[in-house]
C-alpha cells in the first residue's frame, strides 16, 4: 500500500504559478485568472490544488495528479488551468478521448488569454496527431 502520508490533505504552497520544466507545451504557465480582481477563496484553494497536482505530475504520478486536478475543478469549475493540466496528464496516460474534452473546456476558459495560446495550440496539435 502506498504510504504517501498526508498527500491529499495538506499543502502549504505558494499561490503563484510555478514553472513547469517538463512540459513541452510552454516554458512557464500564466495564471488562468487574467483579471486583476482578487481571487475568491474557492479560486485560491483551486490554484493551490493545481500546484499540488503539478508536483505529482512532475514525479510521474499521473493518476494521482489527475485526481488532484479534478479536485481543483470541483472546487472551482472556472479554473481553466486545471482543465488544461488534466488534458495534459490524460494525454500522457493515453486517454486521448478524455483529453480532448478537457482541452476544449480549457480553450473555452483560457482561449481569450494570449499568454495561453501557445500551450493550448501545442496540446491541440499533439492530440490531433494521436487522435485515432
Amino acid at each position, binding site marked *: 500500500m502506498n504510504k504517501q502520508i498526508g*498527500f491529499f490533505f495538506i499543502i502549504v504552497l505558494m499561490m503563484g504559478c510555478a514553472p513547469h520544466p517538463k512540459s513541452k507545451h510552454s516554458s512557464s504557465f500564466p495564471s488562468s485568472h487574467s483579471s486583476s480582481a482578487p481571487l475568491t477563496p474557492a479560486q485560491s484553494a483551486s490554484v493551490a490544488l493545481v500546484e499540488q497536482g503539478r508536483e505529482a505530475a512532475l514525479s510521474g504520478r499521473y493518476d494521482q495528479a489527475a485526481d488532484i486536478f479534478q479536485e481543483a*475543478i*470541483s472546487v472551482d469549475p472556472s479554473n481553466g488551468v486545471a482543465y488544461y493540466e488534466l488534458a495534459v496528464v490524460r494525454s500522457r496516460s493515453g486517454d486521448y478521448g478524455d483529453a480532448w474534452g478537457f482541452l476544449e473546456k480549457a480553450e473555452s*476558459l483560457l482561449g481569450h488569454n494570449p499568454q495561453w495560446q501557445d500551450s493550448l495550440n501545442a496540446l491541440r496539435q499533439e492530440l490531433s496527431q494521436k487522435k485515432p
Partner: protein
Amino acid sequence: MVVLGLYLFILDYQIKSKFEAHRWNLPSRVYSDSYPLYPGKNISPADIDRKLKRLHYKKVLIPIKAPGEFQLGSAEINIFLHNFSYPSGDFTGFPVRIEFEKNTVRVIQNLETHEDVKTLKLEPELIGSIFDDKMEDRTLVTLTEIPDELSQAVVAVEDERFFSHHGIDPISIARALLVDMIHLRAVQGGSTLTQQLIKNYFLHSRKTLVRKFNEMFMSILLEIHYTKEEILEAYLNEVYFGQRGPVSVTGVAEAARMYFSKEVSQLSLSESALLAGMIRSPGEYSPYKNPARSHERRNLVLRLMKEQGMIDAGDYEKARKEKIILAESSHKFVQAPFFIDFVQAQLKADYPNSILKSEGMRIFTTLDLEAQEIAETALGNHLSKLEKEKPKLKKNLNESGKNLEGLLVAVQSQTGAIRAFVGGRSFEKSQFDRVTEAHRQPGSAFKPFVYLTALAQGHTLASTIEDKSFTVNEGPLTSKNWTPENYDKVEHGTVTLRRALEESMNIATSRLGIEVGLDHVVETARAAGIESPMEPYPSLCLGSFEVTPLELVRAYTMFPNQGTRSEPLSILNVVTRDGVVLEKKSFQIKKIISPELAYLMNSLLRGVIDRGTAASARTMGFHGLAAGKTGTTSDYRDSWFVGYTPDLLALTWVGYDDNSPTGLSGASGALPIWVEFMKRAGLGNEKEDFPKPENIIIVDGELFIRGTEPHE
C-alpha cells in the same frame, strides 16, 4: 474403527478446506465523495458538527488527543482527523483547528506544525454495504492490529486456559456436564474459544449431543493444524457483537466502530473489557440497551484480567474508573438505497453480485451525503404535503391507496458528479429507480432544445414568432391533423423568442420547431445526449416522447458548463480490500455548443425563474442566480423542473407510476422540491452571472452574439 477413521477424515477435510480457503464473505462498502474545506468556504460549525458525527467522530470536552475526536467551540472546531486509506494512498490523521467567522471558514491550522493549511479534506463517508444473505458486517483485522488487552480480555472471560488446552478443556466440560445433569438438559456451555469458533463456523447452534461430539473432535483437529494465534485471530474476526438494524455486527473491528467509533487498535483497556464482556450475550450486555449490566460485566472482565495476572492493580483501578463514552447510535440503517442499487447495477458487468457480496471491495463514489439527506427530506415532505392539500391526490391515496411518486437527482454540472440521487419516495415500498428507469415525457422541459436549435441557426432572443393557432399533419406517415394549444388557452400574437420560452408557449414553440426544421431539433437533442427514440414530428417540440430523467440531466449540463456536456458520474474508484485499485474513473466532458450560445440559453432560462413559469421560486424564498425550465405534460401526468445554479444542477419530477394525471404543473409539483433542495444544498451561490463570453453584447436591453445584433 474404520468408521471412526472415516468420520475423523471427513471432519478434518471440512476444517482444512474451509479454514484455508475463503473464511468469510466480506461485504463491499460504498463511500461518498470526500469533502473539501478551505479558508473562505461557506460552511457553519453546525454543518461540520453534523458531518463529523456522520463520520463517527466523537465529540469531547477535553482537548483532542486521538484520531476521531473533535471539540466544538463557538467559533472554532478542533478535529483530530481519522486515518483513512484512499485509493491513491494512506492518510495519517493529524489534529487541525478550523476557525470560523460567522458561517465561513476563516483559517485552518495544523495543530502539530502550527502552519496554516490551504486545503483540507474530510474523508469519505460510508454510505452503505453490499451484503450477502447473512447480512454480516465485518472488517478483517490481523492479531497484530488488535490490542493485546482486547485479546487478553476475551481469553480471560471466555476461556482462561485457552493457551494451555488442546481445543477442549476437560475441566470446563466436567463442570458443564455436572450442571447439565442437575438440570437434565443441556444448559451450560463450557466451550473453549476453539469450540465456539467451530460452532459458529461449521455447525448449527442447536445443543445436541451429536453436535457436541462433532464440535469436540473438530476443535482438536483445528488445534492440530493451526497455531493458537491463528485460531484466536479467526475467533476475534468471527464473533458476533449484536445488531445494527437488519445487519449483524461481527468481529472486533466492526464492534469497535459500532460501539466506540474507533479503529480496534485505538481501544482502551476499559473499552476492550466491555466488548469482551458482551460476547456471552450481546443483547443482554449491550451498553446501549442495558448500560448498568454492561458496566458490571466490564468490571467483571477487568477483575478476571487482574486475577489472571494480565493487568496490574493500577491498570485495573484506572480502567474501572474510566467513563464509558459510546458512539452516538445511528437510527438510519440504510442511506441512499437507490444510489447504492444504481452503483451496483453499473458494476454488474465487471463484478458479479457474488463478488461484490463477498470480496470486501471498497467503492468510492461522487455522492454528497449532506445533499442526499436534504434531497430525501425535501422530496418526502413535499409529496406528503401535496397529498394532504390537493383533494384529488388525497382521494387517490385514501380511496385507491395510490401514492404520489417523485424523484430528485443533482449533479455538479462541470464534472457530472452525481451529488444527490433519490429514485423514489420510499425504497422500502418500491425499488423502482425512477432516475434511470422511468421513461416519461419531458413536456415543456424539452423546449430549450428547440430554442437552442433556433439560436444556433442565427435567430436571436429578440427574433419574433407568431403565437397564433395553426394545424399541421401529425407526422409524415399519417393524415391526422395536429393543433397545438397553449396551457392558458390564449394566443399571444407576435412574441419574442425570449418571451415565448419564459412563458412556455406551446403554439409559438411548435411553430419555431417546424421553422428551424424538426430534424435539426432532433440533432440538437441527440448532441446534447438524449438517446431515447425521437421522431421529427411537430409534437416533439412540446416533449411528447419519452426520456429518462438522467438523460435530461445530462442534456442540460451543457448550459451552465459553457456549452460542454458532462456525463453523469457516480463511481470514482473500485479498490480491493488489499488496496489494489481495480477501476478508476474520471469525469468525461464534450463540447457541444459555443460558450456564447450557452450564455444566451442561460439568460433565457434565467428569465423563466425571474419572470416566467417558475417565478414562484422567488416567492418561495429562493434567492440568487439560477436558471431552469418547468415541464408539464398533457393532462398533467408529469410535473418537472430542471434548474441550475452555476455549480449545481438538479432535476425534480412528480407523477404517478401508472401515468395517470396528477393535476400538477411543473411549478406546483416539482418546482417546490427543487427550491427546498437548492435553498439548503446550493449554499454559497453568490455569483451574479454565469461566465460571460467576450462576444456577447447588449443592444437595446437584449443580449446578442456579436454580429447577430440588429442594424438600423
